């Protein structure tokens, strides 16, 4: 970059001139120190507030920059962390927006006594506008990141739904097995029912059973899993439970896995529906944000148009005033001309009478 800094030459010349004018060498330093203090003291409340908001926005941008990769890429940040980040950013944006609004109201209420010059008012209006635009740019960048994250979440959700809707070949045969069981049983079986011996504890029963059923389709010519399962259950049941009461218990036992499988399936479907609803709500929230941004942009344009209209009104007012003056001047000129014509006519008549 081509810039020549001539400040040292300038300072040297100032020192020389000051010395020639009788000032002491140390006065330059004391003047600079005084200038520094004067700068700090001259800062008005408005400027301090505006600087504060600008620093907040800069901090927000830095925060976004630091976290953008982790936030935008699914997998780098958990959902809870993403939500927390969104909450933090949302609160900062709201706070900045409220502060800018307060500054704007301060401007509209009128400048404090002593700084009410048009240049000061224009500078402050420019500062508020600059802050709004900076905040708008930051939120637009954040919206883009959020849209990217949503897009990836959506794609992941679609993949998961496809996987659930089309289970693999081994799962496919388990599904009808569990379905037939559900149809046959219809009861509730707790997969981790410790009363059922032979079943693994902690909820693995159902899944283990499904997996066992899943293993059977490797050779499709094998007996259907229901029979296998029934055989298994029957076998297991028959080794444990005695006669009539035991037969009832056997039936209950047969129903439990079917019911648990049905319940599991229902829960899975419900979870999918909830996830879809959550995704839709998030999209609607994003849409809401995008609409707000578009409306804010239009508001800015409307404000600009309004300012233009106000200026134009001012011009029209001035033009009207000038027109009024012109009309008045024209009327005055007409009157003067009329009087002159009258006098000239009377003068001619008088002279005619005089000569005759």
């Amino acid at each position, binding site marked *: *970059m*081509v*810039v*020549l*800094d*001539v*400040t040292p*030459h*300038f*300072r040297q*010349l*100032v020192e*020389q*001139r*000051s010395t020639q*004018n009788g*000032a002491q060498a140390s006065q*330059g330093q004391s*003047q*600079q120190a*005084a*200038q520094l203090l004067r*700068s700090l003291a*001259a800062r*008005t409340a408005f*400027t301090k507030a*505006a*600087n504060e908001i*600008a*620093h907040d926005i*800069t901090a927000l941008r830095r925060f976004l920059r630091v976290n953008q990769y982790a936030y935008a890429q699914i997998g780098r940040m958990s959902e809870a962390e993403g939500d927390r980040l969104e909450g933090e950013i949302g609160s900062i944006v709201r706070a900045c927006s409220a502060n800018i609004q307060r500054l704007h109201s301060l401007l509209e209420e009128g400048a404090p006594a002593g700084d009410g010059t*048009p*240049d*000061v008012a*224009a*500078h*402050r*209006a*420019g*500062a508020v*506008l*600059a802050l709004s*635009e*900076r905040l708008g*740019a930051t939120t637009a960048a954040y919206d883009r990141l959020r*849209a990217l994250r949503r897009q990836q979440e*959506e794609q992941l959700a679609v993949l998961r739904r496809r996987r659930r809707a089309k289970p693999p070949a081994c799962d496919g045969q388990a599904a009808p097995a569990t379905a037939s069981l559900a149809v046959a049983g219809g009861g509730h079986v707790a997969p981790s029912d410790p009363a059922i011996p032979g079943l693994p504890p902690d909820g693995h029963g159902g899944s283990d059973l499904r997996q066992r059923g899943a293993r059977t389709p490797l050779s499709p010519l094998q007996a259907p899993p229901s029979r296998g399962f029934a055989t298994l259950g029957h076998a297991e049941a028959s080794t444990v439970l005695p006669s009539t009461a035991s037969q009832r218990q056997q039936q209950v036992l047969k129903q439990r896995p079917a019911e648990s499988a049905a319940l599991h399936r229902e829960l899975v479907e419900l979870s999918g*529906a909830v996830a*879809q*609803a959550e*995704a*839709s709500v998030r*999209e*609607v929230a*994003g*849409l809401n944000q*995008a*609409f707000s941004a*578009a409306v804010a*942009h239009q508001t800015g344009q409307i404000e600009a148009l309004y300012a233009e209209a106000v200026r134009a009104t001012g011009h029209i007012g001035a033009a009207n005033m000038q027109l009024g003056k012109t009309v008045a001047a024209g009327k005055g000129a007409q009157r003067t001309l009329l009087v002159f014509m009258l006098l000239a006519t009377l003068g001619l008549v008088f002279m005619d009478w005089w000569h005759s």
Partner: protein
Amino acid sequence: MALNIRQKQADAVVRMLHLNSSPQSTGRGGEDLYKVLILDAATQDVLAPLLRVKDLRRHGVTLHLTLDSNRQPIPDVPAVYFVAPGPHSTARIVADLAASLYDSYHLNFSTQLPRKELEALAEGAAREGSAARVARVHDQYLQYIALEAGLFSLGLPATYVDLNDPSAQDAQIQGAVGLVVERLFCVLASTGTVPIIRCPRGGAAEHVASLLDARIREALHQRGSVFADGAGAAGAGLAASLHRPLLAIFDRNFELSVMLQHAWTYKPLVHDVLGMRLNRVTLAAPGGAPGAGTHVPKTFEVDDSDFFWSAHGREQFPKIAEQVEAELARYRAAVDELNRSAGSNVLDAAADPADLMAGNTKHLMSAINSLPELTERKRSIDKHTNLATHLLGAIKERGLDQYYALEEELTAGKEHVEAVLKHLQGSQGTVTDRLRLALVWLLTCPTAPLEAECERVETALAAAGADVRAWAYARRMRRMNLTGKSQSSAALADGRGVFGGAAQAQLTTLLGSSFGQGLSSLTKGVKNLLAGEQQAAVTVAVEALMEGRPNPDVDGYAYFDPKAPIGSGPRPQGPFKQAIVFMVGGGNFLEAESLQCWASRAQPTPKHVVYGATELLSPETMLEQLSALAVRGGL
């Protein structure tokens, strides 16, 4: 790296707005955040094509004011001054310091601040006791107007008149040349490289080149040189010339006809017909109260950021109309698609409601996101539709297509004076159009036109009501072989007696004894690139210079290498990849386009050419300058 003069200037301006620190560095306790910008008329023109008010705000400028306006104190804000150096600016700054208008003053001068002015500033600041308020003083070297990446202007009006005025004094001419050299130096300082300078011998071009060489040498020997590569060894001939650009300086009289020709491509047409200035076009758009029939002026900005302007600026006008239609159709298709996807109310009973909702919200989201881009695109299409409509109206009204076609034929030597006379006596075109046609014929005749033919043309022009002063001046120049297709030193020697006295000596000094030598052989090489496209003479010359091979047409050109020791002869040079072509006396978009077209098609590798001039003149302005010279020359 390709020379992008506009980007370099924009980067320098942004850095200046951030108080000459990097824009990325955080402000020192909020000092950098908000500032007031003070400009003068010259620097306003510099910034106008680069930054809009919104861009200024983005860099923390809340208010921009002119130096000479009545300004009130804003006590807690730093002020960034960006003004041209001079006694007036110095006086105003000292007055502002005395009035304590701002908290601190960051002074930036568009060219080098002379020592005398720096002393005056220091004295004024010391006297007012406000020297401590002056935070920084910088020489920015930004006094030129970068209109495009490869196009700049020095913003010096009427340089052609100043340098060709037979009644001008030495001091005036030196002053005009000095201004050109200083601003051209700013351009070179921005690029940061020391070019090899070539120019035709004699004339204003060599004068400018020699002073520029001296200026660069002086800068190279200063501490903290503005040139990135400093005053080191020039390096091996081939390697050095491959990296160092060529600066080819020409005088406007080298080829005058290109300034007067009617254009048929978009950018030159907009500049010629619609009066584009500083990348802005003002048109009278219908407005005001309904039925009042009033026209409200509307300003359009056209620059490299406009996709249509940068993509289709070099195309011929009929193609522009097609492209506008095509872009409009593309936009409508995009909007229809958007409406269809976002607003579809078709309910598929078999579809999953959740999927439907997800699909709808996704489409709405993409619609919202693509709205700003579509809006901007539509705005651009509307703008160019307006421009094309106005151009079409002017073309139909003035028959500009016929003027263009005839001038192309004249340049190629395929038409004669009879066709010109027929057109002059016709009804199409304004008086200025006819004058331009006549001048193009006069200046592009392969041999000097006969007096009888000139008389007939002059009579036809007078009958049409044209101002024949410009014609008279051009005719004298042609008669003396100072411009036009074939010139010789003998003819020039004959013409010397016309002026007489000090003016004669001055003109001889300016024009040199061998001005225009070699031009005839160059113009013989004018090629037709495509049907209807002619190369400007300067393009042929630049091609020969950039090739770096021995060429009798350009071997006689003056050679300046600011890095080589004084008195050392020209070194053998290899081909140049980059060049800066500068016209002393004015240039236009047509000439710039001719250079850019050749550069992009150059073999074996495309070249990169930056074109600049003292000012970008419309043909009407050129005619006014020719008329003014005729008056001053006593014609």
